[in-house]
């Protein structure tokens, strides 16, 4: 139980790092949104379940937080992408120069 908790926390922090890197490196608003939202959602779930496994009396509260994040984070990302599309932001076009 202890080892599983530490492994889950480490996997969550790795996904946070990947999410931050994706936000920094991606070329476009929509790419940034999907990289940041998906990676950080999975990282948050893994980290919170890991903390709940390390202290089993907090497990119920941790599951409540995970369910809340799983409902609200895709909604906020979708609303922001819809607003960016309605403002006229075009996706980046790849030019083929062969």
């Amino acid at each position, binding site marked *: 139980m202890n080892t599983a908790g*530490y492994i889950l*926390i*480490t996997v*969550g*922090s*790795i996904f*946070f*790092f*990947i*999410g*931050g*890197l994706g*936000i*920094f490196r991606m070329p476009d*608003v929509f790419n*940034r*949104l999907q990289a*940041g*939202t998906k990676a*950080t*959602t999975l*990282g*948050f779930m893994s*980290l*919170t379940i890991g*903390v709940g496994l*390390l*202290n089993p*009396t*907090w497990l119920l*509260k*941790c599951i*409540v*937080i995970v369910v*809340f*994040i799983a409902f*609200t*984070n895709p*909604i*906020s*990302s979708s*609303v*922001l992408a*819809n*607003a*960016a599309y*309605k*403002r*006229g*932001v075009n996706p980046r076009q790849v030019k083929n120069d062969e």
Partner: protein
Amino acid sequence: MIEFFYWFLILFGVLFSLLRIILGPKIEDRVAALDGLNVMVSGIIVLLAFQFKNSIYLDVALVYAVLAFLETVIFSRILEKKKELK
């Protein structure tokens, strides 16, 4: 020993997303980076609850998640209404 590892990784994630907030070319990039940063800060608060052995931080993380969701939705409503913001 393993604590340094995961705090280091989380530090770099927060640093990259803060950098994108500072030098994002348009306002949508900044709001998208803020949306990612809020989830990371909520995870950091959950990790502080484990580090300090105090379960009150879990309630703080839940309230922070609610306010972060409201913040992103209201920002995107404002962006949709006012198209002259850069």
